[in-house]
């Protein structure tokens, strides 16, 4: 991983005096850390559906409610009851002073409305929140983030809790300007333990030997999951270290092999009897301009990044009983799949394909109590980005609202949130972990 020298320099006051803005050091999650490191301000527009539940959740996590003035660690506005342009005035009335009080790495979290069918004004207002939150994400400073969670009328507070916790906590350090829709849960939400939300769950992570996959394995294990670490046989030594560190098993498997789904499912059936979480993380790049592209580069990228996910998902769906009661599939897409990237037609095609797959698969999984979502990482500091030319790397890092690259753990934390049984109301969605990158937004 490469060092962010510029961010380190901007921590010095004499550098700041030169007029160089300070690049924030983000607060990241550590076990035992409080949900927020200060009081929270909670407001509601009209008769908010969840304001009381939010207050209860915060109180349960030991977070004090903010007083009349002073810095706040989070400002949460329950705007689920906002349906008219007049209601938006109340939103501004709450947010303007709230943003002024938001402390370093603060959280601005809006709970947005869902318009009733045929109510044109309500639809306009609901959409207005997206513009609002994306602009706020670009304005908030010092590592703060702004996100919008919409809640369907048939989703209750229990379906919302794990998502609230994720966006308020340091786990969402590099997630900003995002819109997540919480719908009716696909199955029982169940009680969750915020300290070990994945306790007892069996989680497969492909591409687990290094980089983001390694971090996903470590993070899911930290949250209580048993890890089945999968990677190509050639990466077996690094994979063994991950498996031993996480007390899981290593499965050396080329996921593009014809018998790969069979071998993966046989391993799961034999060793565990079920699977609760599948993280499709394995991916490769074979960059070339379209004009110079060859079939080999094109097909190998699509085989690993898209076809393998499709075939494994198909096999999981076809198998009666292997998917646990609250199965969660999380697919790693990419910002390139949304925004496109010069030299990456193959990669972007595969990663956009992942998004299409997730949307189409969600309704098929819902009757089995399972969800499927995609995460689209932006610029994440890995061994791969460390090899980029300096200028390209610097540009890649700075063009987001947090003015820095994310860490593999930022992607892993988002995976952990979607992997929880409690996150039963989020499915078929794409969440970007990119610090609100300007590309494709």
């Amino acid at each position: 991983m490469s060092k962010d020298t510029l961010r380190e320099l901007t921590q010095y006051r004499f550098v700041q005096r030169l007029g160089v803005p300070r690049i924030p050091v983000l607060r990241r999650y550590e076990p035992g850390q409080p949900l927020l490191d200060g009081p929270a301000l909670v407001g509601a527009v009209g008769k908010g559906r969840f304001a009381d539940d939010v207050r209860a959740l915060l109180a349960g996590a030991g977070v004090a409610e903010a007083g009349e003035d002073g810095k706040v660690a989070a400002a949460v506005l329950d705007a689920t009851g906002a349906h008219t342009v007049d209601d938006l005035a109340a939103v501004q009335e709450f947010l303007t002073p709230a943003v002024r009080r938001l402390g370093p790495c603060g959280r601005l979290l809006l709970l947005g409305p869902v318009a009733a069918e045929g109510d044109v004004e309500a639809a306009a207002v609901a959409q207005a929140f997206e513009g609002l939150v994306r602009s706020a994400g670009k304005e908030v400073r010092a590592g703060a983030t702004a996100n919008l969670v919409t809640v369907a009328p048939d989703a209750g507070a229990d379906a919302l809790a794990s998502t609230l916790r994720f966006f308020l906590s340091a786990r969402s350090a590099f997630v900003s300007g995002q819109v997540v829709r919480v719908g009716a849960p696909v199955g029982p939400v169940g009680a969750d333990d915020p300290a070990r939300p994945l306790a007892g769950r069996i989680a497969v992570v492909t591409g687990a030997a290094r980089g983001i996959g390694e971090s996903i394995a470590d993070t899911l294990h930290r949250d209580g999951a048993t890890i089945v670490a999968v990677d190509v046989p050639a990466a077996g030594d690094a994979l063994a270290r991950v498996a031993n560190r996480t007390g899981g098993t290593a499965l050396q498997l080329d996921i593009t092999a014809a018998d790969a789904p069979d071998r993966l499912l046989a391993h799961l059936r034999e060793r565990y009897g079920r699977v609760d979480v599948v993280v499709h993380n394995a991916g490769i790049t074979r960059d070339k301009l379209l004009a110079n592209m060859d079939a080999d580069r094109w097909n190998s990228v699509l085989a690993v990044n898209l076809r393998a996910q499709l075939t494994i998902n198909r096999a999981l769906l076809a198998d009666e009983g292997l998917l646990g009661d609250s199965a969660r599939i999380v697919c790693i897409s990419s910002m390139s799949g949304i925004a496109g990237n010069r030299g990456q037609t193959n990669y972007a095609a595969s990663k956009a394909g992942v998004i299409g797959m997730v949307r189409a698969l969600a309704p098929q999984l819902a009757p089995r109590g399972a969800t499927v979502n995609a995460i689209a990482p932006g610029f994440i500091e890995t061994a791969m980005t460390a090899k980029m030319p300096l200028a390209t790397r610097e540009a890649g890092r700075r063009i987001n609202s947090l003015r820095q690259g994310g860490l593999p753990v930022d992607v892993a934390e988002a995976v952990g949130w979607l992997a929880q049984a409690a996150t039963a109301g989020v499915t078929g969605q794409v969440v970007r972990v990119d610090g609100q990158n300007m590309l494709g937004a």
Partner: protein
Amino acid sequence: MPETRRKAAVIGGNRIPFARANGAYARASNLDMLTATLDGLAARFGLSGQRLGEVAGGAVLKHSRDRDLTREAVLGSSLSPYTPAYDVQQACGTGLETVVLVANKIALGQIDSGIAAGVDTASDAPIALNDDLRRLLLRLNSAKTLGARLAALRDLRPGQIVPEIPRNAEPRTGMSMGEHAAITAVEWQVSREEQDELTVASHRNLAAAYERGFFDDLVTPYLGLTRDQNLRPDTSVEKLAKLKPVFGKGEGATMTAGNSTPLTDGAAAVLLGSDEWAAEHRLPVLAHVVDAETAAVDFVHGRDGLLTAPVYAVPRLLERNGLTLQDFDFYEIHEAFASTVLATLKAWEDPAFAKERLGLDAPLGSIDRSKLNVAGSSLATGHPFAATGGRIVATLAKLLHEKGAPARGLISICAAGGQGVVAILEAA
């Protein structure tokens, strides 16, 4: 005490790719390689932090600092430090002998699980001090007065600087293993062509096994090596025919660097357990260890070749189990040299040898050669002495499991010192 006699289960194995001496593992020690191999096995079967019944392991070429090498490897691995371990040494039979030891303890109910392992490096071989110098230094160390110390130092001589380098030679004959094998090859009239054909088959079988992903759950890469460094998938009888003989003399010299196993570095381990232990831990049972036999021959004063002990061990093992040589689906005969395998097969086919030397009415007969070393053997993988047994047991167990019960396999490993270890596995 448990009243039990059960068959030990082979659950699986792990090895690192074998490297040619002074190749990819030139700077790796026995301890490094054995630890990495145990860690790979632990990862494959989720044993991290678990206490096992025991780990038996060993090496043939050992440094003096490698005292209790296996225990040190366990302590450096992700296995629970509460797992006991001990070292075994029986030349090239070491690896299979560790399997027998662990399997026997499981069979007797003394332990429920264990790992049998072996490692060797020809690159990081021990070099010892000249014996004269060593004695002088010991005397210096025990000297109590300055005078005695000076007296010891006065005996220092330039010649004492020459170190003791380990030689691939039998202490009692001064001959190398290859030279011994060459005598046996002549005795059994093993032709150059036969040896080269067996060599080609070994390389092709190993390459094909890699290609079909057979080793995906048997091998873990190490230090950048993902396949055995000695493997030559494109070798041919024509290419091998060009090599000059390196062992034997004159007309009868048939053994080349191609049809002899090169010096190799590597390590292998096998996970064994009772069926119950495997079931409790949701682990597969690939095969069971049925029986084993070790034989030794008098190659110093007698008529036997150095590497011919398995010729004697197998008939004893077959008789005890009521089997014939033809009752097997797979034969794993360690390819120390191509000529060793061929001479062994010829000895079993020879009526006179059966009668006079084995004391049998009829020879064991010939085997179906298509069942021999079907996933390659030492000529292609290389042969890190103590690691070969573990490689063969894990490979055969997987082959048997693929074929399914009631498949049966025979293992035969010749060893320096005129010894040989053989065993029977059956599919689970």
